């Protein structure tokens, strides 16, 4: 290989590298653009969406807060996500212990079962739960369809795979000799689990709680079938509003959702490797 070809290649190579870098920046911008535009819209002064805006204003945040439908959607989403995540952790932490520690027949099958809410399409989960609740309501007379319980159980289901994945991943990395020391010093298995193991898997628990919360809070496909008047979650309220019109008010509400979820993710990225989680 002569020096000439190396020199001859350089400008092309530099150009190709620059083009690649520009393409990368463009694609990242494309991913971020929808959120940036929503933030921009929320600060526009006019009542309808016009680019370029007539001016800028903060008043739509106040207007949004005073819209009953949107505020109650926000509150419903908050408490549903909080209850679903708490219950999700309560049922999945023991299960994760068994899955991470146990070698028993059917282990793989149970793991697949617990991960299935992530695999079955959301719209199918929502439709099935809705049809099931209506059928049970017809059989038993219990008012289930359109009740808050339906949403909570459905969202609990959605948090299960995330919690199992994150908690088992942390349990596998636990140094067993510390637990064995506690057991040999006379602590019962339960006390050992609560006072020795739990503190060691703390980052996994926090990550599981955050992801469970975020997944529940942002869900559309499942909630769609289970909301009822006065019992609407925020993403469904936003969806219904957007089917009607787009304006700075709904953008302000969307920004509230972006900020809440963004804060949760930034906090999690400090304690766990985000690239491995998703």
């Amino acid at each position, binding site marked *: 290989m002569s020096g000439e070809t190396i020199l001859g290649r350089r400008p092309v190579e530099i150009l190709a590298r620059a083009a690649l870098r520009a393409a990368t920046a463009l694609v990242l911008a494309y991913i971020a653009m929808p959120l940036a535009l929503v933030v921009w819209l929320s600060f526009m002064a006019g009542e309808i969406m016009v680019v370029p805006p007539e001016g800028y204003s903060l008043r739509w945040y106040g207007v949004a807060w005073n819209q009953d439908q949107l505020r109650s959607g926000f509150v419903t989403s908050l408490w549903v996500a909080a209850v679903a995540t708490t219950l999700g952790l309560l049922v999945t932490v023991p299960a994760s212990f068994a899955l991470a520690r146990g070698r028993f027949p059917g282990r793989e099958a149970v793991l697949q079962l617990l991960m299935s809410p992530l695999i079955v399409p959301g719209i199918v989960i929502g439709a*099935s739960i809705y049809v099931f609740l209506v059928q049970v309501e017809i059989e038993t007379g219990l008012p289930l369809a359109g009740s808050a319980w339906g949403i909570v159980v459905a969202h609990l289901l959605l948090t299960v795979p995330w919690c199992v994945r994150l908690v088992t991943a942390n349990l596998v990395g636990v140094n067993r000799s510390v637990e064995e020391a506690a057991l040999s010093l006379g602590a019962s298995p339960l006390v050992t689990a609560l006072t020795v193991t739990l503190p060691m898997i703390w980052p996994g628990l926090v990550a599981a709680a955050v992801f469970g919360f975020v997944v529940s809070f942002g869900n559309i496909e499942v909630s769609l079938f289970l909301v009822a008047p006065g019992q609407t979650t925020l993403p469904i309220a936003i*969806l219904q509003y957007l089917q009607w019109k787009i304006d700075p008010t709904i953008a302000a509400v969307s920004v509230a959702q972006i900020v809440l979820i963004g804060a949760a993710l930034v906090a999690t990225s400090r304690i766990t490797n985000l690239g491995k989680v998703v």
Partner: protein
Amino acid sequence: MSAATTEQRRFATLLAPATVIVVAGLVLPLLLMARYSLNRFEPGQFMVEALTFGNYVKIISDPYYRRIAVTTVTMAFTATAICLVVGFPVASAIARAPARWKTALLLLVILPLFVGNAVRAAGWMVALGQKGLLNWILLRLGIVSEPAAFMYTWGAVCAGIVSVNLPYVVLTLQSVLEGTEKSAVDAAQSLGATPFTTWRLVTLPLAMPGVVAAGLLSFILAMNAYATPVLLGGPTFQMMAPSVADQVLQQSNWPLGAALAFTLTAITLILTATVSFTLARTHAGA
């Protein structure tokens, strides 16, 4: 022997609550749905007990539903192809980025992913609306003389789905590219291969399992897209997930809605199994 069974009983107790929730909350409803997909829908009397594949046949033979299926599959293919082509350079850039940049770049990709599709669709409405950003730019540049209709078109839905799927594609490719041997790339280049030849003969083949996995994931997501087609495609644009919701909630045609739901599920499950198989083979090979 008895110690082992006590141990197993303890594992069973630990697994019971989560298992019960998934069985009662997902498996039983799915079984009921599967049964209903074989029932008949009689206008005026709701659902009639039956054992027929008529609803599935209708999805394939009725031009109306066949068009929905074709639109959905075409959309999923197009969006996935675009995602793979534009996602690859981003994924390799993130995979090679220094650690302090990597977290920030990953957050930039992950945040939109969790913010929800309705909010992202709102962003696209600002971009593509009658008085939106794109029309303003085109008018200023004199490319169009009056605002063009971008909203409620195939292109708008495709742009939206691409932006929804890109983060997943980038993350999947990124994690595979991160694991590929840098030494192989260095070897190729030290032997005189041009960067493009190196990419074509070394990087791409090594990343192929990731490309397949990312592609299938994107395809599944696009097949099941709900909020994006509803908001950017408008009331007349039909894809499969919105039509499941429409049949179950608006038309009260549970049998047909259930059959549509199971067609979607079947496609999703088959593709998911392919993804895990491909990834399992990569890890076995590594």
